Structure formats: C-alpha cells, structure tokens
C-alpha cells in the first residue's frame, strides 16, 4: 500500500515539473517580448521594463529563469501583479471562492448523478432510463456558457429565484446557481458512468452468487452492485475536483464570481504573463494533488490495488 502511494507520488513530480516548465516556456520564451506585451497598447517605459526584466529574471539564461521561478513558487514570493499587489495575496483571496464553488458543484454532481444513474441502471431499458439518457446527452451537448446564460436568464432574471450575479462575498447561497451550472456537465457524466457501471455489475457472476445465497434484493443492490459500481465513479469525482477548479473560467465570468477563473481571465486580457503563470501553476499543482487523491481513493475502494506492487 505505502509502496503504491509512494510510487504514484513520485510519478507526479515529473508531471508537475514538466507542466510548469511547459507553461513557463510558452509564456516567456516563445517569440515576442512578454515585457513589451505587458504594456499592451501603451508606450513602453524603458526604465520600468528593465526593472521588470530583472524582477522576472529575464536577463538570466532560460534554465536559470525557470529554477528561480520554481524557487519563488515554493517560497510563495510570486512577485506583484499589474496594480502592484503581491500575487500571493491575490491568490489567497480568489482561491477560497473557487474552492467553495468547485466543492458545491462536486456535491451536486455526486449526489444527483449517483442517484439518477443507479435508478436508471437498475431499470435499464425502461422509460425512466431512456428519458434520463437522452436528457444527459443534451446536457453534455450544450456548451457550458450557453447553459449558464440560459439558467441565468430564466432562473435569475425572469423567475427571480436566485441572484443572477454573485456578490463580492460569494456566499454559499450566492453560489448555488453557478455551482449547478459548473457541475451540470459532470453531473451528466457521473450519471452515465454510474449507469454503465451498475449495468455491468448487475450481470457480474458475484451478484448472481450473492442472490443465490438468499440475500434480499435491497442488500444485493446496496452491498454488491452499488458498492462495486462506485469505484470508477468516485475516482472520476476525485479527478473532477481539479478539473472544476481549472474549468470555472466561463462560469465565473457569466455570474461574475470573484474567483480564480475570473482573475485569470482578466490577467489574460491585460496580458499579465506572471500572474497567468502563477495561477496556472497553482492549478497544475491542484490537478496533481487531486490525482494523488484519486489514487488514494482507488486504493481505499478496491482492495486488489492495495497489495499490488
């Protein structure tokens, strides 16, 4: 077990280094001067530009730049954004908001996805199953920003059941509608995954054997079908946490949520390379950690993994 986790952990190190190197390379080493780009349409102030070049170590060779950048990440000394605020402080402000949003979306998709998927799987081929299947396809097919506008317009503006935009405090209540929009795509996916998994397990030999032992239908479903079907679902949910945090850009834009995605989007539009790199780095780190979480969950759920070398 511990060997397994250690192995997975060691495998993530090259992924983290590689991904951050890739982003760093893309932002700072492709043709085009990133510092000039920082000024956008404004005339370049050479004194400020020189200061920035030193701040981002652009006077150093590329490898040195990257290593210094890595060091800055682990010391939380990420430099300053356009308005002169420390980037670390900005991240500390926006990440909790996005984390709250992502966890709410995750709870929504897990609870409803698993319940609907289980019922659909147990009633394979019946009316409920067919309806849910088509509905989930439609949800997957509609792009998230269209869904966002649709729900914002109908529920937020026309029906007035929820605030169409989020206050700067971004309370749990404010975030309900954005969380549903963010989680809808994954909800449909969780539903379909649970359904497939349940159907597969229903015809498994051990389920038939469990029935032959004289267990009640309820117990067979709960202990043997559902428990085994949840293995792929829960591992998907673990990986989805990272994806939701990184994928909240559109949702946060529509509902004006003061989170990571919104900040990243503004940084992109104004060409703030250092801020973009810092945010993406943290997102890659979250991705790596959520992958590690998935491995832990997997080992916890499936005893066959625990003893595998």
């Amino acid at each position, binding site marked *: 077990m511990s060997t397994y986790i250690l192995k997975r952990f060691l495998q993530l190190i090259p992924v983290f280094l590689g991904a951050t190197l890739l982003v760093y390379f893309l932002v700072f080493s492709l043709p085009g001067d990133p510092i000039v780009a920082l000024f956008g349409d404004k005339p370049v102030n050479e004194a400020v530009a020189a200061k920035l070049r030193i701040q981002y170590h652009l006077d150093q060779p590329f490898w040195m730049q990257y290593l210094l950048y890595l060091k800055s990440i682990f010391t939380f000394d990420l430099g300053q954004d356009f308005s002169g605020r420390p980037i670390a402080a900005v991240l500390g402000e926006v990440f909790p908001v996005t984390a709250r949003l992502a966890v709410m979306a995750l709870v929504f998709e897990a609870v409803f996805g698993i319940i609907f998927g289980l019922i659909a799987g147990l009633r394979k081929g019946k009316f409920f199953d067919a309806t849910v299947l088509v509905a989930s396809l439609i949800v997957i097919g509609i792009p998230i920003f269209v869904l966002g506008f649709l729900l914002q317009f109908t529920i937020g503006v026309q029906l007035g059941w929820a605030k169409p935009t989020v206050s700067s405090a971004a309370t749990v209540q404010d975030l309900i509608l954005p969380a549903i929009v963010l989680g809808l795509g994954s909800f449909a996916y969780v539903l379909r995954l649970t359904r497939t998994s349940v159907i597969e397990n229903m015809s498994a030999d*051990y389920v*038939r054997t469990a029935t032959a032992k004289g267990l009640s239908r309820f117990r067979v479903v709960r202990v043997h079908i559902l428990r085994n079907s949840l*293995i792929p679902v829960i591992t998907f949910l673990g990986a989805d946490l990272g994806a939701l945090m990184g994928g909240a850009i559109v949702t946060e834009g529509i509902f004006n949520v003061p989170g990571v995605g919104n900040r990243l989007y503004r940084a992109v539009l104004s060409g703030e390379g250092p801020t973009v790199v810092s945010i993406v780095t943290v997102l890659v780190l979250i991705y790596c950690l959520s992958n590690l979480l998935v491995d832990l969950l997997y080992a916890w759920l499936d005893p066959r993994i625990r003893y595998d070398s």
Partner: protein
Amino acid sequence: MNAPVEIHEEGASARRPLLEIRDLAISFKTSGGEVNAVRNAHLTVMPGETVAIVGESGSGKSTTALAAIGLLPSNGRVSGGQILFDGEDISHASEKRMIELRGNSIGMVPQDPMSNLNPVWKIGYQVRETLKANGLPDSADDVAKVLSEAGLPDAARRAKQYPHEFSGGMRQRALIAIGLSCQPRLLIADEPTSALDVTVQRQILDHLDKMTTELGTAVLLITHDLGLAAERADKVVVMYRGQVVEAGPSLELLQNPQHPYTKRLVASAPSLASRRIQAAKELGIESEDLLAPDEDVVVASSMPDEVLQIENLRKVFKLRSGLGRSTDFTAVDDVSFSVKRGTTTAIVGESGSGKSTVAQMVLNLLAPTSGKIIFDGVDTSTLNSKEIFAFRRRVQPIFQDPYGSLDPMYNIFRTIEEPLRTHKIGDKASREKKVRELLDQVALPQSTMQRYPNELSGGQRQRVAIARALALDPEVIICDEAVSALDVLVQAQVLNLLAELQSRLGLTYLFITHDLAVVRQIADHVCVMERGKLVETGSTDDVFDSPQQEYTKALLNAIPGAGLMLPPEVA
C-alpha cells in the same frame, strides 16, 4: 462412490422427490424474437441423491439448473412446465418466496471461482452475510467453522483476507463453504471445478462428496464431462439442444447408451476414451486399433530422425516488485527432450508449469535465458532475421482460444492467404487455389472463404487456424492447448483431423496441454512438467502404465472416471 444401487433399492416409492422438473420449457427474448432454450425437460432428484446433467455448451443444462433456483437472466422466463421443490411448484414463485428458499433450502456452487466472489469484500464477510440472511448464528467463530469444514486451512485468519489473496482452488472452497453454509437440502453445482487444475479438481470434488454425504444434501451437478458425471453421480441426465435425450443410472448409461447422441458422447469423451484404452491394454488389445480415426490411415514413421532437440532450456523472468527492485522467476528450468519426426510429443502440466513458455521459445517468439533449441540440426538462437523468416515456414503454431486466434477483421480467405502473401508464394490465382485446397483438407466448405470469424463456431475457427498453419507446408506444428476450449464432440472431431493430417502429411506435433485424457488419445511421447521442471518423460504407454513420479501418478489419478469399469468394445 459407485453405490447408487443401494440407495435406490430401499423403497424409492415411499419417498417424495426433492426436486422434480416436469415438461420444463424456458425461452429467451432476443433481438430476433423469442428463442426456446429448453424444451420438455424433466428430471427427478430424490433426497440425498446426486444427479448430473451432462451436455455441451448451449445444451440448456445450466439454464435448467438456474431455473430451479430462480436465477434465470432477466431476458429468460419459464414458458411451460413445472419445477416442484419438495412438492411445491416454484417455477413462477414470487421473488420473496425464492429469497426464503435460496441459501437454506437450495444452495448453489457456481462455475468460475475467479468471478463469483465479490473482489471488494473479505471472504469472511461474504460467508457471514449468507449466514445472517438465512437467520443462522454469524459470529466470527461460526464463519471460521463454515470455512474450515469446506477444507480451508487456517480458516480464522483466511476469513480476514480478500478473494484476490486466494488461489483458484481456495476460492472454490470458499464458494462451496458459502453454498453449503446454511445446510441446504439441494445443492446446485454448476461445473464447480472446470476452471481448476485437475489435481485440485479431484480434491475439491472429493471434499464436496464427503460434505454432501454427511449433511444428506442432494446435489444437482452440471458438467460437460461424462466421465466426471458418471464417477460422481447416482443418475445422469443427458441434454442435447435444449432437450433431455437420455437419463438413467450412471453406469448403465455409460455401458448401454441408447440415444445416438449419448452413444456419440460416450465414444468421444476423452476421459472415457483414455480409460477405454487402459481397459483394452489390460485385455491385451493394441491401443492403436482404438485410436485410429479412419480405417485407411497408415502411420507415417518412415523418417524417425529427431527434428527438434531441446537441451537444458531455461527461462528466467524478472518480476518487478516495488520501486526498482526485481525478483527472478524461473518459468522453465533445465528442460531437455527431443521430438522425432512424424510423431506427437505432448508436454503436460498444470497452470504455471512453464509448458506454454517452452512453446513460445520453440516458436522463436521468446528468447531462452540459456540452453539450446536445435531444429533440424541448427541452433535456432543463431539464426539471422532472414533465416528466422525461413524457419517460420517450417514451424507453425495453433493456439488455444478459438475466439482470439483469428483476426476478426480478416475474412477466412485473407486469414489463410496471409502466410502465402507474407512469404510471396505464388500469384493471386494460385493462392486462391491453395486456400480452397486447405479448406478441403480441414473439411470446411469452400464457401467459408468469404465468411468472417465471428460467423463461425469455436471448432470451425480452430479448423481455420489449422488451415492457416498448414498453408506454408510446415514440418512441425506446435499445438498450444489447441483443443482445450472445445466441446467434447468438436474436440474429438478436431483431434481426428489432426491425426489424419499427421498421417497424410507426415507432420510432427508438439502438443501442449493440461488434459492427460487427451494426451492418451493422441501422443506418442509424453513430457510431464511441474513448476518449470521436467519431472517425467517417456512413451505414452510407459508413462500411463507405470508412472515413476508421484506427481505423474497424481495427475493420472485425477482424470475423471479413473475408477470406472468400462468394457473396451463400447466404442
């Protein structure tokens, strides 16, 4: 074991059958409409009696048994007849009633020990929930007792382990423990040992016999092996294409089969055939007479030179264990033997014996760690790529899984033509002619050429694989469990084909198998392997008549039906 007569004679009329199936019909809903899987099936199981249903795949034997415990697949239903359990018709009983009956009145031991235990729960938990659901005491001691009664050593500790920590035989013991834990009056055993090695198979069946005798449990045994059925059951029911064609006391059925299908089955079952050869030898009849697949076969033994010599062959695999560490696993350890041209040499062993690894190395698909494989005087490890290409024309394989050995995207013509095309033999017209000839040789209609593997049965695919192997006119054919996955009659058909081709074309076979019964039918020489080592080698007659090693004796004893007395002239 063979005591059915006494049981029957003590006033059978006074007792009520425990299970009586009358005119049972079962149908399945498929995309092509309602299909009848079972028709007019009937059988009777008296309390304490063991009844075996024998049949090939698709005969309806498992379907009939599953109907008796109410576990038909969701698209299947009982469309006629009755299933009387202790006088009560349960063919359309409510699910509630069936849950009451399952476990403590009707138990089940399923076929495949690998897939029938839930991988995420501990063994003890899976036993315990059975006891609990049937209202029996379910403490840790009770669970351990149930497991140890099924022959599982160190049961209390084992109960805390997961299925993947158990070997196949141990899992099957756990499943037997579960099936018998609530002391049912009827146990349905669906091919309970067909997935296990022969020696393990025998131990488990012996133990099952002992337990059911002690508990007075009646057993409905489902099997494809007539020898096994006759050995274990009081009565045998033969099913064919969804119908019961013959039923009666085991020995009588074997000795006096009446229905043409039963006759054919009795004549072909390898365990019986091998037993018959034994009986014939004891009576002084030459075994070749019994083996001859066709009247006009002349045994080709004109060139008795050694086409293949294996010298001190070793194969060590590095198994990775954890980070950067690895342990050595010796799959094949110092194996030497030789194969004479035009003969059949069998390598016999259980799973993990290294027999298939030897085959891979002889085929030059896997490099030996040390030792030599000398083919026709040349060490195959010294061949360059051009010589290997030429070598491939002369040594060809046939594999076990008829569903895996043909490319599903290729039609039969392309499949058989591929070797010719690869070796640039002939033009399009001559290649087509050759393919037609090859199909004739393996007794497949030429119209098969345009078909795809998914349209053929297992036996037909295996015959296509033989045709493909013959396309390059090879000298040696390596059969890696080539008939193990086939039904008995089809297996006999393919074995006859192989024997006929050998005599006609002077082929040399290296036959890898776990099935000693088959070996007796076809091999001239036998090599017995155990855990990578060659433990015994010799002519088939010598090995079968006077085995020298304990392991060989155990293997021979494990052939089902070894205790049966059969007259040789039954065939």
